[in-house]
C-alpha cells in the first residue's frame, strides 16, 4: 500500500518499476507533488467529529453520516446506505453524496481541490469529505474519508477513514491519493452556513436544486447569508425575493423585488418577476408596465419576458 500511495500515475509506475531494485532502498520516488498549503495556519483538528468504523463498501455512508451528524442530523451509515450505495458497484457516487445531503436537509458544496482550501474550511468548523484513490490510476481503489485536521508543523493530514478513527497521513501521501481522485472534496452545511472558500456562483449553484424542489425555506436561508457576504451581487438578492414568492408571501416578495430594482436598475430580471407578483395580486396595469421595463432592457431572457407579457395581457386566463 505504501508503494501504491507513493506512485503518481500509470506512466510513473511503469517507469519506476524498471528501477524497482534501486527504489526498494529508497523512500522517496520522483519529485514531490505540488501542495498548495497555508503553512502559517496553526494546526487544526475537529476532534469532536463523529466516527463510524466503516463496514464493507460503506465508506460513502460512513463519511456522510459523520459530517451530517456534525451539522446536527442524527443519521447512521446504515440508514444512509440504501440510498447511497449501488450494490453491484460496491460504492457510492459523488453525485449521490451531494443528493443525499440535500435529502437530509443539508446543503452540500463541492470545494476547490487544494489543501489550503481544506484548512480554511476546517478553520470555519467544517469537516471536509474527500475522494481518494488509494491505489493506482489504472486500478483504482476509491475511498471517501473525512478530513478533520491539518497540521502544518508535522506536515500531516488527519482523517476519519475506514476503520481508523484518527488516521494521520503525511501530506504528500495524502496529496497523491487525493490528486488521483481529481481533488474532489465537499462540505455539508446547515442551510445558511456558507463555505469559507466558496464564491458567489458556487453558492448560487448549491441553492439551485432546492429552488427547483420548492424548498423555499432552505433557499431563503442560503440566499440571505449570501446577500450578507456579497451585498453587491444581484443573484442572492433575486434569490431572497424568489424564496419569498415561493412561500406565497406576495407583499414581502413585491418589496424585495423593488429593493433589487433600486439597487440594480439596469437588470431586467427583477422587473419580470415583480410583474408576475403584481399579476398574482391582480394589479394588471402595473404588471404590464413592469414587464415592459424588462422587455426594454432585454437580454438573453427576452423570450421569457415576452411570455410574461402575454400571460399578463390575457389576465392569466390563457394557456
Amino acid at each position, binding site marked *: *500500500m505504501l508503494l501504491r500511495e507513493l506512485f503518481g*500515475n*500509470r506512466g510513473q509506475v511503469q517507469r519506476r518499476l524498471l528501477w524497482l531494485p534501486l527504489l526498494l532502498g529508497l523512500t522517496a520516488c520522483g519529485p514531490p507533488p505540488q501542495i498548495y498549503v497555508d503553512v502559517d495556519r496553526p494546526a487544526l483538528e475537529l476532534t469532536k467529529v463523529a466516527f463510524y468504523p*466503516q463496514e464493507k*463498501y*460503506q*465508506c*460513502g455512508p460512513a463519511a456522510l453520516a459523520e459530517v451530517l451528524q456534525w451539522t446536527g442530523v442524527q443519521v447512521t451509515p446504515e440508514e444512509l446506505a*440504501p*440510498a447511497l450505495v*449501488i*450494490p*453491484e*458497484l*460496491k*460504492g*457510492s*457516487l*459523488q*453525485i*449521490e453524496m451531494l*443528493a443525499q445531503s*440535500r*435529502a437530509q436537509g443539508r446543503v452540500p458544496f463541492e470545494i476547490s481541490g487544494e489543501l489550503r482550501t481544506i484548512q480554511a474550511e476546517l478553520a470555519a468548523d467544517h469537516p471536509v469529505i474527500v*475522494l481518494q484513490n*488509494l491505489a493506482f*490510476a*489504472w486500478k*483504482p*481503489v*476509491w475511498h471517501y474519508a473525512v478530513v478533520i485536521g491539518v497540521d502544518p508543523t508535522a506536515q500531516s493530514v488527519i482523517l476519519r*477513514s*475506514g476503520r*481508523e478513527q484518527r488516521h494521520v497521513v503525511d501530506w504528500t501521501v495524502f496529496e497523491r491519493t487525493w490528486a488521483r481522485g481529481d481533488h474532489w472534496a465537499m462540505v455539508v452545511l446547515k442551510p445558511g452556513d456558507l463555505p469559507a472558500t466558496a464564491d458567489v*456562483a458556487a453558492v*448560487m*449553484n448549491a*441553492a*439551485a*436544486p432546492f*429552488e*427547483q*424542489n*420548492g424548498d423555499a425555506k432552505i433557499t431563503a436561508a442560503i440566499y440571505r447569508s449570501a446577500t450578507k457576504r456579497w451585498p453587491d451581487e444581484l*443573484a442572492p438578492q*433575486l434569490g431572497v425575493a*424568489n424564496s419569498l*414568492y*415561493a412561500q*406565497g408571501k406576495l407583499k414581502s416578495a413585491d418589496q424585495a423585488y423593488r429593493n433589487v430594482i433600486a439597487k440594480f436598475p439596469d437588470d431586467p430580471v427583477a422587473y*419580470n*418577476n415583480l410583474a*408576475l407578483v403584481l399579476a398574482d395580486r391582480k394589479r394588471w396595469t402595473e404588471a404590464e408596465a413592469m414587464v415592459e421595463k424588462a422587455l426594454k432592457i432585454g*437580454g*438573453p*431572457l427576452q423570450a*421569457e419576458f415576452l*411570455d*410574461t407579457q402575454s*400571460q399578463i395581457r390575457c389576465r392569466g386566463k390563457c394557456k
Partner: protein
Amino acid sequence: MKSFAIAMRRLTLAVTCVFGFMTVAVPVAQAGMISVERYVAPGTAGDQRVMVQKFMQRDDVRAQLISLGVDPQAAQARVATLSDAELARATHLIDQPAGGDAVAVVALVFVVLIITDILGYTDVFTFIRK
C-alpha cells in the same frame, strides 16, 4: 487494507439522474418567474430533461439499472434533487458519439456511464487507459 474497494467514478453522473426529473422540474412557483439558476446560466434547461427522460425509460436501460442492483423506482427517489447543471452533465455524456469499450467497463463504474458505454453510446472510460 485501510479501506475497501469502492467502485466509483470520478465523473459524477448518475443514471439515476433520470427518472425523477419530470416530476420535480417545477419552476419556482409560476411559469415565467426567472429562477436564480436561470438567471445565472440562461443558456441551460429545456430539452435536456425530455431527452434524458426518454433515454431512461427504455427497457434496456431499466434492465441495466436492475442488473446493477438499483431499483428503477428507487433510483427516481434518489435523484429527485439534481439540478439543471448536474443534469447537463448527464445529457452531455448520453449525447456522445458511439464507440464504447464494453468489456473494460463492467468492473468499474458508474451507472449512467456504464449503461451508455455498454450500449455503445459513449466512450467515457478513456481515463482508465491514460
